[in-house]
């Protein structure tokens, strides 16, 4: 039922005011029911015994039919129609966004809930969902960097890839450390051939560049060279956080409170020089806010075209009332014809 009304509208609803005619008309018809008829004067009506034949009954129904057809016409004039919306979004050329995600061991720190990495994954997916017209790619880095997903418009794959980031697996594969320069450089490499209007890297880290073959400043130069905007996000609370400091023999991590160290100076510089912005995420809420802000800053124009398929429903209404009126006329002048 709800569905029916959702896809149903009256084009000129004020035409329903014509329905007010129905009671007025009915009063008028009742008053004038004999007026237009020539009447024969008769001595005694009682002598017919008040017997109602079929004709008498139909004669009473006729004005009711007339009123009904008036009501139907009024509704018909209001033009009821059902709507079928087919929305076709025209994809405008969006921007390309590379997400450079730090997957060093410190990302397991629990200052964000449940830990930095998981919080990041969740927020990143939401971010991608909100931007259907942009292309995304994912670069993961620790002591070295690799491209998890090259830049693509298939967001499902990107989201899946992010969801599947498994720290333990990566921990075994990658060199330890935080190679911010490598991460950024890899991301830039992926974006350099892109023809998108705007190219963006979102660089996330929670530490200080301490390894890697490419110096962050070199990577910065590269980014500048290709006109790539870099938003930098520093993850981690101010002060101390429960951070893994070692691996136990059974493979689980040893957690200790360690001082959170983020090379903010570097990140700020990268952001400033490429036209991006530096953010500091001290908790989950803050992180979400940052993504929202980036979302706002990187507005892309979306052109959406909606196609409305209207199905006019007045036709049967008018048809019925026309049939009714002609039936009334027909009966009046044939079967119910008066002698005088």
């Amino acid at each position, binding site marked *: 039922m709800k569905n029916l009304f959702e896809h149903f509208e009256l084009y000129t609803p004020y035409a329903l005011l014509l329905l007010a005619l129905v009671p007025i008309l009915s009063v008028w018809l009742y008053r004038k029911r004999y007026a237009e008829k020539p*009447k024969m004067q008769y001595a005694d009506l009682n002598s017919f015994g008040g017997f109602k034949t079929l004709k008498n009954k139909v004669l009473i129904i006729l004005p009711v039919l007339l009123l009904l057809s008036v009501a139907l016409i009024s509704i018909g004039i209001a033009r009821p129609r059902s709507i079928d919306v087919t929305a076709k979004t025209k994809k405008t050329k969006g921007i390309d966004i590379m997400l450079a995600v730090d997957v060093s061991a410190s990302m397991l720190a629990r200052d964000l809930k449940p830990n930095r990495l998981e919080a990041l994954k969740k927020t990143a997916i939401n971010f991608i969902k909100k931007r259907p017209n942009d292309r995304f790619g994912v670069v993961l880095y620790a002591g070295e960097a690799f491209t998890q997903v090259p830049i693509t418009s298939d967001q499902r794959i990107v989201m899946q890839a992010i969801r599947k980031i498994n720290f333990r697996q990566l921990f075994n594969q990658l060199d330890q450390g935080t190679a911010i320069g490598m991460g950024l450089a890899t991301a830039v490499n992926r974006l350099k051939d892109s023809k998108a209007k705007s190219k963006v890297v979102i660089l996330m880290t929670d530490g200080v560049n301490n390894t890697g073959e490419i110096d962050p400043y070199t990577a910065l130069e590269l980014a500048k060279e290709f006109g790539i905007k870099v938003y930098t996000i520093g993850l981690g609370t101010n002060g101390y956080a429960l951070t893994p400091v070692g691996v136990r023999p059974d493979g689980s991590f040893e957690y200790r409170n360690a001082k959170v160290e983020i090379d903010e100076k570097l990140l700020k510089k990268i952001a400033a020089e490429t036209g991006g912005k530096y953010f500091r995420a001290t908790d989950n809420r803050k992180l979400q806010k940052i993504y929202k802000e980036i979302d706002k800053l990187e507005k892309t124009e979306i052109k959406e075209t909606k196609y409305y398929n209207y199905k006019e429903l007045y036709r049967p209404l008018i048809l019925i009332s026309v049939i009714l009126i002609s039936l009334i006329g027909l009966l009046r002048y044939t079967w119910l014809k008066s002698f005088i």
Partner: protein
Amino acid sequence: MTTKDILKKVRKIEIKTKRLSDHIFGGEYHSSFKGRGMTFSEVRPYAFGDDVRNIDWNVTARYRTPFVKVFEEERELTMMLAVDISGSENFGTQTQLKREMITEIVATLAFSATQNNDKVGLILYSDEIELFIPPAKGRSHVLRIIRELIDFKPKHTRTNTAQALKFLYNVLKKKAIVFLISDFIDTKYEDTLKIVGRKHDLTGIMVYDPIEKEMPDLGLVALRDLETGKTAYVDTGNKQVRHTHNAMFLKRHDYFKKAFQKAGSGIIWVATNGSYIKKMLQYFKARS
């Protein structure tokens, strides 16, 4: 209707009905309604053919020529005409309306009465007494009665015969000849009729239109009741409707006959397409 028209119409009716009463009804009426007896009025010289038994011997002896006694009927009768002028009387599908026919009948009766030196009075009634003209003699009085019958406009349209009869009973102290002329589209007058019939010489004249008896097939017609003013569509094409209509008329007619017979009164019924002259003559003849 202007006064001139009315006078013209009165005149027309006078000519028609006076002739009728002079030549046809006069005698019949006279012998139908007898007075209380014969009284001596005068003596006149004997003429050939007079009954020898009527010779007044005292006077004959005094004048030495034969004289006969002349007797005259003691009449001074009163005729009361109670006429229904309710709405239904203005109906008629034949040459004339019921009311027009009633007017002629009343005129005939009134002229017959004056001719026989009787007084004539008139009551016009609907569901109440519309007009009462006390009994009087003379041609001009009869003409007034006719004029009222032609021109009188009743205030009410319905019929109440019983009430008219009650009024008549109260107004007439002496025995009178009463004609109750109506279409008798009414009920519950039987009891009152009995009381009136016991005191007066009562005759009921029922005037009806043939359509009241048998409705022709007119298909669907809008009919307006002249008495109640109600309008309704009647499907005269339906046999059952027509049958009911006929049955209702017969019932009404039956009630009329029975009521008057029980009251010991005479009845005449005449349709507007029939001849009231014939019917009335038959009635008078049967009486005398």
